[in-house]
């Protein structure tokens, strides 16, 4: 899921293909050398790519860790940056102040983003794949193309299109049967709004007073802001197509004989769906969930194009903070520390998810 060539990792063809290949496949059985001078030519063939990978991929990884322990400002040569030990991490995690507060907000916002986007996009993609996989329907090719199309377009272009649709007198407010909502500049948290419906407008004392990382518990429980929610809708909309295709391929690989055997045994279509299809699709579902989590923790493009972290920092994300630290605050060290922490978060989330999925499997 690396590197380059895609702005919206895990959301696009290239990214999902990467993930597939990353899982490795058995290598062909060893064979004797055939070509002349394979020992030398092997290196000649790989050297150009290898040098580039070392310079633009491996070296940067080493740099990230190193810079995160310095006070590099992004301007001087990084070799002249002052070594400050774990100060950057300390500031982000343990010291009172605006940096920890921003980081906490970014974590909160992105956490809601992940929890909102991943289940919904996975469910809708699965639903559409199941419907599209029915033999009796016509025009499946058209629908498949229509659903997949947003996935191959520029994240920035679709962000602009969505901004147009979500503006105050835009399409969304016109077709929704509710009072017009200010979608794109609205810091109200969804959960706060929900509580407001039940008359809870203010935080119960202890929620307002108890703080974690400079952010009151009441703020942690705000839910995604209305603006963040709009960006979540965009994200779901762009990603469904890719995941639908992955599900469709999975569904088509389920052997007909299993289905038929169950049908002969008298299983109804609903039973067959829950007892055969869903269990057999578990590996694919897990794969899609993993791609979803990895991708959603890196959300950047849409934030940059639509809200730039605002309103009131409710769309700040760790990825956006990394960018801001270097290019606005001239604090490369802080940015690098956030990058390291973000990487750890992604790894941890993936592992947790892997464990959860395995357990329900048994």
């Amino acid at each position: 899921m690396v590197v380059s060539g895609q702005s919206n990792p895990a959301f696009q063809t290239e990214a999902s293909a990467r993930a597939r290949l990353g899982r490795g496949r058995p290598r062909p059985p060893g064979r004797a050398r055939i070509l002349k001078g394979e020992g030398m030519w092997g290196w000649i063939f790989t050297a150009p790519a290898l040098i580039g990978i070392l310079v633009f991929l491996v070296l940067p990884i080493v740099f990230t860790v190193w810079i995160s322990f310095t006070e590099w400002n992004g301007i001087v040569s990084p070799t002249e940056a002052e070594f400050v030990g774990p100060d950057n991490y300390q500031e982000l995690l343990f010291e009172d102040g605006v940096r920890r507060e921003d980081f906490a907000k970014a974590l909160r916002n992105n956490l809601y983003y992940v929890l909102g986007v991943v289940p919904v996009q996975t469910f809708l993609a699965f639903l559409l794949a199941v419907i599209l996989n029915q033999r009796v329907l016509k025009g499946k090719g058209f629908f498949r193309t229509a659903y997949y199309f947003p996935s191959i377009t520029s994240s920035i272009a679709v962000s602009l299109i969505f901004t147009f649709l979500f503006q105050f007198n835009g399409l969304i407010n016109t077709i929704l049967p509710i009072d017009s909502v200010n979608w794109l500049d609205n810091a109200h948290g969804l959960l706060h709004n929900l509580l407001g419906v039940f008359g809870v407008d203010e935080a119960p004392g202890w929620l307002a007073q108890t703080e974690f990382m400079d952010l009151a518990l009441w703020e942690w429980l705000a839910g995604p802001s209305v603006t963040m929610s709009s960006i979540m809708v965009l994200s779901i909309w762009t990603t469904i197509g890719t995941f639908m295709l992955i599900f469709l391929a999975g569904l088509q690989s389920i052997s007909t004989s299993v289905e038929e055997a169950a049908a002969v045994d008298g299983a109804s279509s609903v039973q067959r769906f829950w007892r055969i299809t869903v269990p057999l699709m578990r590996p694919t579902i897990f794969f899609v969930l993993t791609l979803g989590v990895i991708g959603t923790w890196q959300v950047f493009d849409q934030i940059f194009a639509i809200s730039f972290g605002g309103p009131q920092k409710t769309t700040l994300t760790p990825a956006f903070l990394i960018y801001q630290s270097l290019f606005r605050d001239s604090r490369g060290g802080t940015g690098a520390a956030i990058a390291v922490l973000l990487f750890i978060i992604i790894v941890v989330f993936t592992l947790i998810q892997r464990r959860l999925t395995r357990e329900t499997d048994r």
Partner: protein
Amino acid sequence: MTAEPLAPAAESRGLEVVGLSKSPVWRSIRKFLAYTVLIAFALAFLYPFVLSSFTVFKTLPDISANPVSLLPAPEHGWTIEGVQGLDRGSIRIPRWTVNSVVVAVAVVLGRVVLDSLAGYALARMRFIGRAVVFALVISVLAIPAIVLAIPRFIVMKELGILNSYAGLILPLVFDAFGIFLMKQFFEQLPNDLEEAAVIDGASTFGVFWRIMLPMAAPGLIALTILSTQGVWNEFLHPLIAAPASPELRTLPVGLALLRGAFGEAQPWNTILAGAMITTLPMAIIFFTFQRYFVQGVASSGGKE
């Protein structure tokens, strides 16, 4: 149930939640429901693009009065002012389009050369250190791009290629994914041809260039298409590679900074014209080579 005819190939392989129901009435109700859902989603996925394309040719007062309708209101009529706005002041869509094309072509060419060479060596040559190189390629695949943003900026700065085409292009050329893809394609080729060519006296490079590379053409096509799409849409890298050079922006970078240039009154016909110009080339490639996209994604989940 068993009376269901076995339709050929992929068609029959799915689960048929709907199709296998017994009562014909119930069956048509379900079919109707299925189509309703499918059509609703198709509208949700396509209408934004259709609406944007039409809005490009509407006047600004018309857009704010009728943001949902496709056709302009009679009193406003069609206009090309949206398109005219694409090259005005700080908005330089033609220039950014050229940049996007240059970067995409250069990166894709570079990847095709480097990835097929490295992929071939990793797939079919035995040399000391091969396992290490392969492990390295695997491990860099898992690092998110955003994590590398700051140090990549440093590397480009130290190499003196910030704010240059070299900076826009070079870091994107080196891509572990493409090496994988090509390695996979080369692994599937049979040994006999290679052996026969060597017996006939072909050089090592000759075997690669004249025999094996042409046979890996489907892999090269897949690599070209997927890379073109990825690089064309790439936002983060060109954003950090040329922070001080508006004339070096690619389309996504230029577009993302576009709205800020306008302040309150957003000329939506121009903004959406920019968005559609960015979308159009990918739409053409997508509809032409759809098979490769679908296969690329489909195979990622289907095989376990």
